[in-house]
């Protein structure tokens, strides 16, 4: 499975330019150059791949065609026939989604005195959080400050981020790191306790904290273990996705309908407060892109939250990670962590030349790679007809000393070794891959939404990252706002009085679809992508 002879020829050119590149990085772009390249080459700017949504509170907002179809989907249950009278579970706080945001919310809700149910679609921890490699940002070094962090966040996000949310993000950040440590997470440190931090795309200070390249896994398994230890107050329901929210007669959120993924049985959970933490939507494969996301990233929370009346924001911008694997075929689309560039690997064309600063914000870096392949035709072709550019991983050991790659990037080394490629000696072929949903449900600094008693946190939400999230700010986001949402939900649950349960909002939704003349293309939430070959 190792590289083809043509690829090897190109690798020779990569090797030849290393001595020069040791001392010469390609210069970063100006803001104006960034704007230009984005407009011409970024997938978000392709007009006919987006359309406005035609129903609901954010009617008229543009989003990818694939998402709009799912959002305008037909509910999985018939509200006129569904019986809400037999409640299966009653609880103070229902958390929907067992990733980082959900686990953090459950823990904080429990600490604030609530009985919690955490319902999730697959296994607890089968989530994008588990897959994050690079790290988590926090301004905790003496040469850094939350204010500098703030500026990086809004600059990366094209200056449209919601200021209050950004403030919460950067000011809570050091507390989140400290919280994780108190739960026993192992960060990369110097012997004297100083955090070993790196740059990420768009950072002006080295504030990326990591746990080798298993940063997300280390966070997720630690939080999961802690949730399990608190079994007396937190009940975890696996393979039980939410398929619809339930409101009460006064328009407050009152829980959700879950579906046993294996038997199809419906379960009714009545909850004083509900936290939506269902993550992103990479498995919708916008514009046919491969994705880095886990199997269950199918926009479910957007669908059911929107039907219940929560407005949307920035869903016309998706993050394409600049460095998805382009070879070998078996792992196309899988993430090659940004930490590889953070540690000094440069991005090169077929002739071994640099054409972009290696640490531009992600959207800009992706656009530059697409330009190199599509317009300048200077990419490297793979046997399956894909095009990619080189990410020169061996530079890392040249810059920082032998053994650095193995120590800092064990997951990456292992990933490629399984397919016969040694990234400590050979560069990696990469092309942009669908990675992150920048926008989502609108929410407030305390995690609340416009629907009373409904909270939201994590990748399902939008606003804090503006139109482009920087690496390391999403793990931070899910923990900052997961914690806030869990705390708020628990406190709020002490005052909630619920009325009669209803699915009127679902009925209303079906009516709106009909009035708009929409014939839904799918039933949604779709819950899982369908990759089965259609057998006869």
């Amino acid at each position: 499975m190792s590289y083809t002879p043509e690829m090897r020829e190109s690798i020779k050119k990569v090797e030849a330019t290393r001595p020069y590149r040791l001392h010469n990085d390609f210069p970063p772009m100006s803001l104006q150059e960034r704007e230009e390249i984005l407009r011409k080459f970024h997938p978000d700017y392709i007009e006919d791949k987006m359309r406005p949504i035609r129903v609901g509170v954010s009617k008229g907002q543009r989003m990818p065609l694939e998402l709009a179809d799912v959002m305008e989907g037909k509910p999985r249950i018939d509200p006129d026939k569904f019986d809400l009278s037999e409640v299966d579970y009653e609880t103070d706080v229902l958390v929907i989604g067992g990733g980082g945001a959900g686990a953090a919310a459950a823990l904080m809700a429990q600490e604030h005195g609530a009985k919690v149910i955490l319902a999730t679609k697959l296994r607890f921890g089968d989530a994008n959080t588990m897959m994050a490699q690079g790290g988590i940002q926090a301004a905790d070094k003496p040469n850094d400050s939350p204010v500098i962090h703030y500026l990086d966040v809004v600059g990366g996000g094209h200056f449209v981020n919601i200021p209050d949310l950004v403030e919460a993000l950067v000011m809570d950040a050091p507390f989140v790191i400290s919280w994780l440590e108190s739960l026993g997470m192992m960060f990369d440190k110097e012997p004297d306790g100083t955090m070993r931090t790196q740059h990420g795309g768009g950072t002006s200070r080295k504030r990326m904290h990591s746990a080798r390249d298993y940063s997300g896994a280390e966070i997720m398994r630690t939080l999961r273990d802690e949730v399990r230890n608190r079994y007396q107050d937190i009940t975890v329901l696996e393979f039980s996705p939410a398929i619809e929210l339930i409101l009460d007669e006064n328009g407050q959120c009152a829980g959700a309908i879950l579906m046993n993924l294996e038997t199809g049985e419906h379960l009714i959970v009545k909850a004083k407060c509900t936290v939506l933490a269902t993550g992103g939507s990479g498995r919708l494969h916008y514009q046919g892109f491969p994705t880095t996301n886990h199997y269950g990233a199918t926009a479910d929370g957007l669908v059911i939250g929107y039907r219940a009346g929560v407005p949307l924001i920035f869903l016309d911008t998706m993050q394409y990670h600049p460095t998805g694997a382009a070879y070998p075929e078996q792992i196309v689309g899988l993430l090659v962590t940004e930490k590889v560039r953070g540690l000094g690997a440069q991005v090169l064309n077929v002739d071994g030349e640099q054409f972009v600063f290696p640490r531009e914000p992600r959207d800009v870096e992706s656009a530059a790679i697409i330009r190199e392949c599509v317009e300048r035709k200077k990419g490297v072709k793979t046997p399956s007809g894909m095009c990619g550019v080189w990410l020169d991983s061996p530079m890392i050991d040249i810059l920082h000393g032998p053994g650095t790659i193995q120590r800092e990037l064990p997951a990456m080394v292992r990933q490629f070794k399984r397919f016969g490629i040694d990234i400590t000696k050979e560069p990696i072929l990469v092309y942009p891959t669908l990675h992150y949903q920048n926008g989502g449900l609108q929410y407030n600094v305390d995690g609340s939404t416009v629907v009373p008693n409904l909270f939201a946190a994590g990748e399902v939400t939008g606003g804090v990252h503006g139109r482009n999230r920087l690496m390391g700010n999403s793990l931070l986001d899910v923990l900052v706002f997961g914690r806030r949402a869990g705390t708020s939900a628990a406190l709020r649950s002490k005052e909630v009085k619920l009325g009669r349960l209803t699915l009127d909002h679902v009925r209303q939704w079906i009516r709106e679809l009909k009035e708009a003349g929409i014939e839904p293309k799918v039933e949604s939430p779709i819950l899982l992508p369908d990759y089965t070959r259609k057998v006869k």
Partner: protein
Amino acid sequence: MAEEMVPVYIMGKLYEVPAGLTIMKAMEYAGYRLIRGVGCRGGFCGACATVYRIANDPKLYVGLACQTIVQPGMYLAQIPFFPAEKALYDINQLKPEPETIFKLYPQVLRCLGCGTCTKSCPQELDVRAYMAAAMRGDIARVADLSFDCIMCGLCSARCPAEEPQYNIAILCRRLYGKYLAPRSKHLEERLREIQEGKFDEEMKKIKSLSVDELKKLYSARDIEPE
């Protein structure tokens, strides 16, 4: 050109699938809509533990379905769930000492040192070595050696002494992270500064800037050198 096909047995039943697919994609090719045994599809979550044998080879092999390429004559079985014991504890009440391991997981001392676990690990971790460290009560060593564990459960599934290796490992990592890792002085200092309101004025100011002013500041940022 016709695709090269290979025969594989999924739960004992024969299917022809294209060469070069991962086990996971081969199952989907065969017509399975996966619910169990699939999570991240990228080698990070441990949902897709698989045991297999190859025709005419008596050995049992293990792998992650999302990371292993099919070979002709593979007999595949998924282990999407394994009921290993997990001790329940309050991390704040524990002490980072050998007795903690022995009390929560007394079976650790029954480990035979046979090394079946090491052979079963799809992450190629030396599970036996960290179990030996656990028996010595060397928490830091267990934490380090087990760090890349994705908790797929294959070690436990194959263990003749019925050890819950991966749960012992996470206990040690948490003990290490919480009690034994050196503290970060700069982090504690920053928490104090934020609590004292050191950044409040500046934060208020930057939040009130216009987009043009922010752009100017942003373009003038000094970037910490590599």
